[in-house]
């Protein structure tokens, strides 16, 4: 029996876990020797607790459904034949349509080294800069984080006495990341006066624990975060002079705009702000899972600035959806992006490579679906036979992040070195091995190795701060006139095809079909009964969902269980033409109670 200390590979928190088992054979032998244990050793992050997805990690990597051999045009093949097929098709497309018609899309399932290798492959072998990270919820945060350096901002005064602790949770919920509860709740209970402040449009479990629940309008988190910072600046104790661009922006934002877009009053914001400034320890968590913020970049910026100016000891934790999206983004810094998303929308891509990414798992991928249908050739590395694999010409059985050696960056500035990890199952290959073999076949040598990936330097603002607030205002004004605003609703209990908790069999019983969370008030008005099928229509399309009446949302807000393909198409992505990146946000929807036959 071997014990491997590793980290959960699902989200950016990278909780520690111990995997126990003998030597690993091919997954299809069926006999699982692996089990999971909680890393309760001293100093272990989050005390070794795991969320519902984390405890399913072993079933995920050890599933009998894992791909064990490559597929070429849906037929079983060998690795050599698949590499040969990929090489010949990519060469043919490059010759016929030019390098610019090839797009490479990466996901957070790659290590830093593999992402670097993918960039070298794209530049040296494919001779294009058409390589992007597909993470519409995380990328806007990264872009602003890179563009604006806030490290000059410091504490606004001496550290307050006592050990009063304040935790600020923006968009994050204990349901999504229960491990944060391990840190936040003992802090709240330890000292009298300690608080938990929650900014969320939902009255969920996390809000129930909050001492101050700043219940914002759907997508209005940025306005509330701006209000906290503005209230701090107006007290006169806090100065943003070292970040002049931000200072100018905050002073330019009117209180009535904050109250209108955020839905939270000035008094409540001032109270929360003074609570943060008076705490001797401040912890901040933000999470833009599946694009629940209207302006993720501004929310992150204001929250980070607010955390930095607090005089107490501070800790700022942005939580990303997939574990290594920040690492992959950092490795790609300097790449032009090649307007891949623009070409993808226009269906100008003739060949696509999808690495470390299940496109159809959690994000609206309508344009990708069309592009994959139209393009001549698509190759993908996948763990399971999923919708992405079904649409690709060549599928390579991939290794999970837990099965790869290398480095990952779960959070800003926190490097995690993986070594002596679980070996991949028989027949599976890491993305690095595939890229090296492919390059060799195409006549280049980019064998793994090379320099260490370094975190990019912050700064060099692109001057888009003003524009950010303007477009946020336009979005919120648009949502004001809507019948209802739909936010992504995500809980580990939702076990649809795209969810990482798809291996939690019990949850398939609790949520077998996509659901719509709707307030009693709104349901009464529209004559919708609990459990009734309702038709929901947005710019992205139309879907039939099962209505669930709940007290967790306000009358004008509805939530839809995001892990179901029918729901994902309701959240269309928005293409930012200047940066070439895509982003997501809550959408306005029309709900009709009449049940329709599907």
């Amino acid at each position: 029996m071997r014990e491997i200390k590793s980290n959960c590979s699902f989200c950016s928190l990278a909780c520690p876990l111990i995997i126990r088992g003998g030597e690993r054979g091919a997954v299809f032998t069926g006999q699982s020797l692996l089990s999971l244990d909680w890393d309760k050793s001293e100093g272990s992050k989050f005390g070794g607790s795991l969320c519902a997805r984390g405890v399913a990690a072993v079933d995920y990597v050890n599933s009998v459904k894992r791909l064990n051999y490559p597929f070429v045009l849906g037929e079983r093949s060998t690795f050599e034949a698949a590499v040969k097929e990929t090489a010949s098709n990519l060469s043919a497309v490059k010759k016929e349509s030019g390098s610019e018609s090839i797009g490479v899309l990466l996901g957070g399932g790659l290590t830093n080294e593999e992402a670097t290798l993918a960039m070298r492959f794209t530049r040296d072998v494919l001779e294009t800069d058409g390589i992007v990270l597909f993470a519409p919820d995380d990328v806007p945060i990264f872009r602003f984080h890179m563009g604006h350096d806030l490290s000059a901002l410091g504490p606004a005064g001496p550290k307050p006495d006592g050990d009063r602790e304040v935790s600020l949770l923006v968009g994050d919920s204990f349901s999504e990341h229960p491990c944060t509860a391990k840190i936040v709740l003992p802090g709240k209970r330890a000292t009298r006066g300690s608080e938990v402040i929650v900014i969320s449009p939902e009255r969920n479990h996390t809000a129930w624990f909050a001492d101050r629940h700043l219940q914002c309008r759907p997508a209005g988190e940025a306005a509330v975060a701006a209000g906290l910072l503005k209230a701090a600046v107006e007290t006169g104790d806090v100065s943003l002079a070292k970040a002049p661009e931000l200072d100018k922006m905050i002073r330019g934002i009117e209180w009535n705009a904050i109250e209108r877009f955020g839905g939270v009053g000035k008094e409540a914001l001032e109270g929360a702000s003074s609570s943060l400034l008076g705490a001797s320890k401040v912890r901040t968590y933000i999470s833009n899972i599946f694009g629940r913020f209207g302006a993720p970049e501004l929310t992150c910026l204001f929250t980070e600035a607010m955390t930095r100016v607090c005089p107490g000891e501070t800790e700022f934790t942005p939580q990303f959806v997939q574990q290594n999206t920040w690492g992959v983004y950092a490795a790609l810094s300097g790449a032009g992006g090649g307007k891949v998303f623009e070409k993808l929308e226009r269906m100008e891509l003739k060949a696509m490579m999808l690495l470390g990414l299940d496109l159809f798992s959690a994000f609206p991928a309508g344009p990708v679906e069309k592009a994959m249908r139209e393009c001549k050739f698509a190759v993908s590395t996948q763990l399971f036979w999923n919708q992405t694999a079904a649409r690709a010409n060549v599928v390579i059985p991939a290794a999970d992040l837990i099965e790869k050696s290398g480095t990952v960056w779960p959070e800003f500035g926190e490097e995690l070195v993986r070594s002596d990890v679980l070996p991949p199952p028989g027949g599976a290959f890491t993305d690095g091995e595939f890229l090296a073999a492919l390059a060799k076949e195409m006549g280049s040598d980019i064998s793994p190795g090379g320099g260490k990936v370094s975190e990019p330097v912050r700064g060099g603002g692109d001057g888009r701060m003003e524009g950010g607030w303007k477009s946020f205002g336009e979005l919120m004004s648009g949502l004001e006139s809507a019948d209802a605003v739909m936010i992504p609703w995500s809980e580990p209990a939702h076990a649809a095809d795209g969810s990482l908790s798809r291996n939690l069999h019990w949850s398939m019983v609790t949520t077998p079909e996509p659901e719509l969370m709707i307030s009693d008030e709104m349901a009464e008005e529209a004559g919708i009964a609990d459990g009734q099928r309702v038709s929901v229509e947005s710019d992205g399309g139309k879907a039939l969902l099962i209505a669930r009446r709940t007290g967790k949302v306000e009358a004008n807000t509805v939530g839809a269980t995001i892990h179901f393909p029918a729901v994902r198409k309701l959240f269309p992505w928005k293409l930012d033409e200047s940066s070439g990146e895509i982003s997501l946000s809550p959408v306005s929807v029309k709900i009709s109670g009449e049940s329709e036959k599907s």
Partner: protein
Amino acid sequence: MNLCTGCRACAAACAMGHHDQGLLKHGAVQEKALMPLHCRHCDTPLCLEVCPQDAIKKDENGTIVRMSHLCIGCKSCIMSCPFGVMFMYSTWHISPKCDLCQDRLEEGKEPRCVATCTSGALVFEELTELEKKYKRAAEGGRYFARFMPTR
């Protein structure tokens, strides 16, 4: 109950540790809180008394264990349980129940649901220890919810 964050990691850990056959289910309390509904391991268990196959037994530690190979799926225990914590898995045709993770207890570890609980809502201690720890509870203080009633 006032500590549960509703993350359902306990239910997931239970299912994963028992070959996908979760022995612990959740009941929602007015949408405000979730609490794990698990076997209370009663002193005089009704389920044991009604089982026609003697598939439910009490071991030397006082743990109520169910022999899955003896269970015929008659649902008597489900109907008799005063706490409603026994339930039916029609697929397996048996009534699963909490075994306090015997395999882990033998290794000196806490049950899976307690090991994964993030907020400290679940604790695994002797009742006498708990009473010492939270004296107010015995006097009817706010920690009453930590003590699951038994029969």
